Structure formats: C-alpha cells, structure tokens
C-alpha cells in the first residue's frame, strides 16, 4: 500500500502543480479549462501531436537516463544542457565531414562521437568532484555556460551555413546534414524518427547495467552509503567520476538525436531546455530507468501541449516551465513523507518478526 503511495507521489505532485497553474491562469484572465483542453489536444489530439510528443520524449528520456545513473551514484548532474550541446556539435561535425561514407556508418560514428563528447563534458566535473572535492552542481553549471558559448562561436564562425553567408542572412546555424545521415522516419508524414526506439532500448540497458552488473551495483552502493562502500573496498571517487561521465554521455546522445533526428543541423537553442526538464523527468520516474519511460512520455506531452496552449489561448509556454519547477519542489518536498512511510514499514516489519519469534 505505502509502496503504491510512493509511486503515486509524483503524480500527486503534478496534479498539485497543475492546480496551482490553474490559479495562475485565472490571474492571467484565461479560462483554465480551456487552456488545459488546448494542452490535452496539443499532446494527444491527433496522430501528429502524438508523434511529436514521442519526439520530445526521446531526448528527455536520454537525458533522464543519465541523470538517473548520476543521482543513483549520489552525484547531481545539472550539466545536461552543456553535455547535450557538445554531443550535438560533434554529431554535426561528423555528419558534415564524412560525407563519402555510408549513412549507417556515419550515424553510428555520430552517436559514438556525441556520447564521447558528452561523457568528456560530464567527466571533467566528475573528476573535479572525485579528486578535488569541487561541488559538481556548480562545475556542471559552469560547463553549461562554456558549452553554450562554444556553440555560439561555432555556428557564427567555423560551422556557419555557407548558404546563409551567400544570402547575407548570417543565421546562426550550421549547414544542413546530408540526407543519408538523417534518422529514418517511423511514421511517414510525421516527425517521429527511429531515435525513440534507441532511447527505449537504452532504458532497458541502463536498467540491466544498474541492477545486474558489478559496476552498476557499485555505483548504487556508493550512492547509498559512500562510507560503507569505502570500507568494502570500492574506490568511491572513481565510481563518482564514472557516474557523472556516463550521465554526460547519455545527455550527449540526446544532443546527437536532436541533430540527426529532428533539426538535421546545429542551431542555437538545439537543447530546448531538455537538460533541465530531463531532471524533472528523472525525479518523476522515481530514478528508475524503466519508470523514466512513462515519465518522459508524460513530460514530452506536457511540452508539446504547452506549445499548443500558447497558440490557442495565448498563454506563454513559460507557464509549463514554471510548473515543472513546482513539480520538482513538490516531489522533493514530499519525499519526507515517503521516508516516514518507509521507516514505519521497517518498524512494522520488525514488530511482526518479533511477534513471530517464539
């Protein structure tokens, strides 16, 4: 029973946030029912809307998988944005450089490159945390800023679209990738690409990794109790650095997918804030790789719905960003109750065992 309450806490949190959002809508003199109806229609109203929901859920899931690994290792990764950007940059570079090779090879290379780039971007704060005791929250935020500037520099300089230069528009974006590098469409006439399958497969793999392999077990052990892990002979700093490196890799992959699956080029705003909303999805999914699948889907639909709401009733989609912040606050705030419930469970179990003893 109390386990069910645990699992439902994020759902309550979201409902509470939507309720607060309804009050805010009233203040903005918008009918909340109309606004939320637009949100619902935008997310589920048509095949296209549904496809777009899955398209947005894909990078969310990838970022959230990374967040899940790092949080399980008790390392907080706020650097999803920067890691995504670095992944996107490398994917673009690979796609524009190896134009003579077969598409599948370039796509594979782009994914590996993006994963590696994100992993380096997460690994630096990871090493700093593990061996120099630098707060990873701060360093990952700084790495975000550096990656952002790096991208701004590239899309205005070395990687700028020659077509934009010729037309004198100088749009801050790269050249379009050759079509052979694009991820295939799953449903014709929609944006849905095969990246969603990759993300779901990876979710299963992360589950197996965290719960069925020694390395995964050690990451979780370090997260649960670093002191006990140290006594057990686990090199704690190494596993902390590793979990942040892996987290960066997954976020980097999300950047790759955005480039080869959706935009087909590098451009400003490529991350769409997924680095942050991925944290919300991860918390919402209870930091369980399989739980993240429905959580990301739900948040993807919220984001798509928010766009529709903006068009239909002229409520800025920033409302949804605000509500996502509230969801985080409500979820972490309500964890005290789930902790108390857990304590009560343990006590009740102990009593039962004591009574069972003759």
């Amino acid at each position, binding site marked *: 029973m109390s386990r069910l309450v645990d699992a439902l806490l994020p759902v309550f949190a979201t409902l509470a946030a939507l309720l607060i959002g309804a009050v805010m809508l009233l203040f903005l003199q918008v009918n909340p029912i109309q606004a939320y109806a637009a949100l619902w229609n935008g997310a589920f109203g048509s095949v296209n809307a549904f496809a777009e929901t899955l398209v947005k859920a894909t990078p969310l899931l990838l970022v959230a998988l990374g967040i899940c690994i790092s949080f399980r290792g008790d390392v907080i990764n706020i650097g999803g944005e920067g890691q995504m950007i670095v992944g996107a940059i490398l994917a673009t570079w690979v796609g524009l450089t190896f134009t003579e090779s077969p598409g599948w090879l370039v796509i594979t290379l782009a994914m590996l490159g993006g994963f590696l780039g994100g992993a380096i971007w997460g690994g630096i704060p990871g090493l700093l945390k593990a061996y120099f005791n*630098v*707060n990873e929250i701060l360093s990952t935020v*700084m790495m975000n*800023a550096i990656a952002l*500037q790096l991208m701004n*520099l590239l899309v205005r300089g070395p990687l700028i679209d020659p077509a934009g230069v010729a037309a004198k528009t100088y749009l801050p974006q790269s050249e379009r990738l050759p079509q052979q590098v694009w991820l295939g469409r799953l449903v014709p006439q929609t944006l849905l690409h095969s990246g969603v399958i990759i993300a779901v497969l990876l979710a299963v793999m992360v589950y197996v990794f965290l719960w069925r392999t020694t390395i995964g077990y050690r990451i979780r052990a370090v997260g649960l109790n670093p002191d006990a892990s140290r006594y057990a002979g686990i090199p704690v700093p190494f596993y902390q650095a590793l979990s942040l490196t892996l987290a960066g890799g997954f976020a980097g992959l999300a950047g790759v997918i955005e480039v080869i699956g959706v935009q087909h080029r590098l451009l400003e705003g490529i991350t769409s804030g997924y680095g*942050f909303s991925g944290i919300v999805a991860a918390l919402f999914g209870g930091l369980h790789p399989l739980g993240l699948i429905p959580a990301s889907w739900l948040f993807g639909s919220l984001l798509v719905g928010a766009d529709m709401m903006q068009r239909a009733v002229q409520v800025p989609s920033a409302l949804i960003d*605000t509500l996502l*912040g509230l969801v985080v606050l409500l979820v972490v705030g309500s964890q005290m109750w789930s902790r108390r419930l857990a304590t009560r469970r343990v006590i009740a179990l102990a009593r039962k065992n004591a009574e069972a003893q003759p």
Partner: protein
Amino acid sequence: MSEIITSAVLIGILTSAIRLATPYLYAAIGEAISEISGVVNLGVDGIMLLSAYGAFFVALNTGNLWLGLLTGALVGVAMGLLMAFISVTLKAEQGISGIGLYMFGLGLSSLLFKTTIGTVKTVVGFQPVRIPLLSDLPFLGEVLFDQSLPVYSAFLLVPLAWFILEKTTWGLRLKAVGQTPAAADSLGVSVDRVRYLAVCVGSMLAGLAGASLSLALVNLFQENLTAGQGFIAVALVYFGGWRPLGILLGALLFSTVNAFQLWMQVLGVAIPSDVAVMLPYLLTIVVLAFTVSRVRGPAALNKPFERGEH
C-alpha cells in the same frame, strides 16, 4: 595593446568593474549567510530573476525606483520562505530543491514578463551620486565615488556582514547551527528558526541583487536577464571561503574580467567575444578546483537537521 589601454580606458574598465560587482556582492553575501546556517540555496539565480522582474515592473509602472527596490527585496523574502519551508521544514534534499526554485523563478519571470510587459522596455535607473571631496580624488575618485546608491550599499554590506557574522550573538548562533546543530539545539537555540531567518535574509539579498541588476546596472528586464550570475554568486561563496572579504575579492575578480571583456568588445579588439565570455566560467572552475579542497565549509552544510538523530 598598450596604446589601446589608455588611462581613460582603464578608468572606464574599473568603473564598470565596480558596478558589475554589485549583484555578485549582494547575492554571494546572502548565499554565504544561508550556507553558514547549513542551507545551500541553489535557487539564487531564480530569485534574482523574479526579483529583477518585480523590481522592474513596479519601477516601470510607478516611476518610483525605491518602491521597485523594495519589491525586489520582498520577492526575495517570499522565495526564501518557500526555500526554507521545503529545505528546513520538509527537510528535502537542498541541491535539488534549489534547482526546482531556480526553474520556478526562471519560468515565472519569463511568464510574467511576456504577459505584463511584452517587449523590452527601459527605465531611468539609479543615477550616479558623486560623493563630495572624495570624488575629486584623481583616478580613484571617478572609479569609486561616482557610483549609484545600490552600488555603494553593496560595498557597505561587506563590512556590515563581517561585523554581524563575527561580532554579534546572531552571527555566533548562525555558525553554531551550521557547524553542530545538535549542540546548538541542546543549548536551546532553535535550529529551524535560525535557518529560516538565514535563508530569508540571504534570499532578500539575492532579491536586491536582482533589483540592482534591473534598476541600477542595465535598467531593463528581459528573459533570463541574469544569464547564470546567481550560480556564479554561489561559486563565489566557496571561492571566498564563506568570508565577506574573500567574497569581495572574488566578486571584484569576476567583475573585472567581465568589464575588461565588455570594453574590449566596445573598442573592437580582435578577441572573439564568445571566447571572452567563456573566461569567467573557466575561471570559476579553475578557482573552485584550487580553493575548495583547502577551505573547510560549515560542517552541517546540506544536511537537514532532525532532533534526536545524534
């Protein structure tokens, strides 16, 4: 290079540096107060954004800058109460709570900006007030004593914070609660009350940081106006070793790099501005790597206090 940096340019750079240090000073000293009591508030940037918006909105509609400043401070206190409720009363993980607060502030300030202001507008912000005699000093006079009131008060906050932290009972209580909450509790100090107050005072200062940004530095509001300055302020607390003087040095270091880069852009010196913009962030990481392991922070930092756990 040498012919570009004339004394007029140098005065320009240093005057900007003093101005640009203002939001860092308010926010970082506020964060230090909160952290000394044991609460890491990572929502500073979100608080700054919402306060910068609130202050700007009120100043734009009433024409009263002081009312704007007050609004900024009050928005800060309100956000502080929210943070304190979640991290002290509900004992939530402070890092993630702060990120939630940041996302909330970022989203709400954009939402309100779009619905109530719409396009980027400007106000006539706080004007420089020349301090008689001192402002006539060669060189230093122009740099230090021809600034606006929010700038002066940010620098006065440094000795004031030092005095409160080192010489008053409240400062001692703050430290006791941040070092050994159980001991403070057993001596009859209410850990929760001290932390609530510290978080609210800290957030109020973050609010002033935001208000000074929109009313004394850039005189406008736009989405994500702070561009991560609140996070740098948190880093400055570590840099400064939780001491006001250390924070002052860090803030000046950052603002000087910023001012230098802005002036180089103005003068058209050929360093790509994006590279220059990266500098402060790179600097933060390097500085964190070299200072954090050496300075010891409050022992109970980031640890919710529960009676009877020790």
